[in-house]
């Protein structure tokens, strides 16, 4: 069983939902990333989504775009992100880490090289935002060959046929994008999310995470009522932006947000 499967099995037994924070690796500078990952776990994170910075983040709103720009200014490359995961694994061998990013850095490294390096570093899942299953065959083969879970997005526009197709190749969990828009957008409608999750669960037994539009403890708790996992990104990355240069403050503010979400979700 993979770390991701272990994680969801354990949470299910405890009657809890997964809290999944997203931060961009290397934002605002590389030295903060590994300590921040540990701090987030201590604050109640179950899985960490680590963003791989890309020059052209087409699916991201301004907050995560600027995070990628800050990380790239410090030269954070895909191989540096893998090194951060390897360093994280020296102390934490149980918390799953999912890399989230765009295809091109992986394409340039080569699928097989990337999959092997990711597995060796201790990466558990890979979510490539701009890679639908139609184009994913070769990367899927490489990831599966090294025991890495391919994570896919589902969207409000995804119809039954596509849910079926995506869930057939996904493993670990699937990630439902709660609204039409980019990361950091507003307008979360929990009832429409609940309705869509019913539709999704007709096609799969995989855990379903929900992200986009979750900003605080209340929205996290509301989504946790219907989903298996709550993903929070821009609300955390904003704290990094507001406090760039003050590592302690960044860590404190992010862990505060997560601890409040954790408490509300478990209440």
């Amino acid at each position, binding site marked *: 069983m993979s770390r991701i499967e272990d994680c969801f099995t354990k949470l299910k037994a405890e009657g809890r939902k997964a809290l999944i924070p997203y931060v961009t690796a290397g934002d605002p500078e590389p030295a903060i990333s590994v300590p921040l990952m540990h701090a987030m776990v201590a604050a109640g994170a179950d899985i960490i989504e680590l963003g791989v910075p890309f020059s052209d983040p087409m*699916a991201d709103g301004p907050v995560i775009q600027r995070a990628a720009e800050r990380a790239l200014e410090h030269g954070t490359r895909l191989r540096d992100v893998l090194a951060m995961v390897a360093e994280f694994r020296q102390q934490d061998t149980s918390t799953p880490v999912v890399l989230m990013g765009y295809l091109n850095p992986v*394409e340039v*490294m080569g699928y097989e090289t990337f999959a092997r390096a990711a597995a060796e570093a201790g990466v558990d899942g890979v979510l490539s935002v701009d890679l*639908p299953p*139609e184009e994913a065959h070769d990367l899927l083969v490489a990831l599966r060959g090294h025991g890495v879970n391919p994570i896919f997005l589902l969207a409000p526009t*995804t119809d039954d046929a*596509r849910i079926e197709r995506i869930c057939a190749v996904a493993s670990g969990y699937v990630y439902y994008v709660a609204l*039409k828009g980019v990361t950091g957008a507003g307008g979360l409608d929990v009832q429409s999310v609940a309705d869509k999750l019913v539709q999704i669960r007709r096609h799969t037994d995989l855990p379903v995470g929900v992200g986009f539009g979750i900003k605080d403890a209340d929205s996290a708790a509301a989504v946790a009522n219907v989903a298996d996992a709550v993903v929070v990104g821009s609300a955390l990355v904003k704290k990094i932006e507001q406090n760039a240069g003050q590592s302690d403050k960044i860590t404190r503010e992010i862990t505060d947000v997560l601890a409040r979400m954790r408490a509300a979700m478990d209440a």
Partner: protein
Amino acid sequence: MTVQIKQAEGSLPDDNGHFGPYGGRFVAETLMVPLRELQEAYDKYLSDDDFLNELDADLRQFVGRPSPLYLAERWTQQLDGAQIWLKREDLNHTGAHKVNNTVGQALLAKRMGKTRIIAETGAGQHGVATATVAARLGLKCVVDMGAVDIARQAINVYRMKLLGAEVVSVESGSKTLKDALNEAMRDWVTNIDDTFYIIGTVAGPHPYPAMVRDFQAIIGREARAQILDQAGRLPDALVACVGGGSNAIGLFYPFLEDRDVAIYGVEAAGDGLDTGRHAAPLCAGRPGVLHGNRTYLMEDDNGQIIETHSISAGLDYPGVGPEHAWLKDEGRAQYVAITDDEALDAFHNLTRVEGIMPALESSHALAYASKLAPTMDREQIIIVNLSGRGDKDIHTVAALEGIKV
């Protein structure tokens, strides 16, 4: 008369939008169903006589087609080689080939019941062409444009505003065309229900590369018929500039099966290919995935897209249409590059010798033709796509000569 749009049965791309290993549909999940709906609508209207008749009428009466095929006699004499014929896309309404595509996509948007049009633009030509058709059809129009391009293309920005479009200044990344495209994609994903995204070049996710090509292929269909009529034979070579590559594929596509016709796509060498300051992914880049398709890109060893340079804003783009990537690998077309200085020389030469002021984009094609012609016989024929007029560039040219206009 009904225009025929598709070429031969079985031609590329395949059903998933692949030209060999290139093209495809690399987008976030939210866009996959809307792209399929666009594909279905496009397939349907391609064989719909009402749609095709309306398109044909618009191209004649609104755009001013057919555009002339003009023998540049004095320039040909000066170069002392092959005859140079110019396909005069500069004479279209709005001054460039871009409007061929925006007219087609806007009619499609109307048929699909969309009320809001968005577009990205670099030099502003596609933005102007989009704002123009949106004004005519009474559709709301938003154009994304990099802040750097807004500063260097002030006239086109004002033209778009006069036409009623909202111009959004894109401040992310390098603040140029590639970032405008990112921003338009973000707008589209947010406003999927009422919005139609008119992409201006033969790049992006399937079906855009095929659809934009099909709308631009009227350039080559006309040119082929005109040269047979006016010269009594097919040309020996075609030359067109390539940024994203829509004017080039428009000229090339109807000649692809004419195996004796040599095809040259001209990229922007900027300060020179060896300086790294250029916009020539086919000549000096390598394959990768950006903006929804796999194609040749300007990228670093870590897969980050690098900033490009060209004197011509319309060529200042790090990718290229996937069909060009395929034609390069197949050897059916050759891709070459022309520097800023060479393009400027061609700009001045054509203006002084023929009384035609070309766009700086088109000047790259002209510069290559002026190298090619002297190596060929006087009986031979080169068709150059004069894709746009140079009025928009006079400030750039004047500034280089230290003149304030």
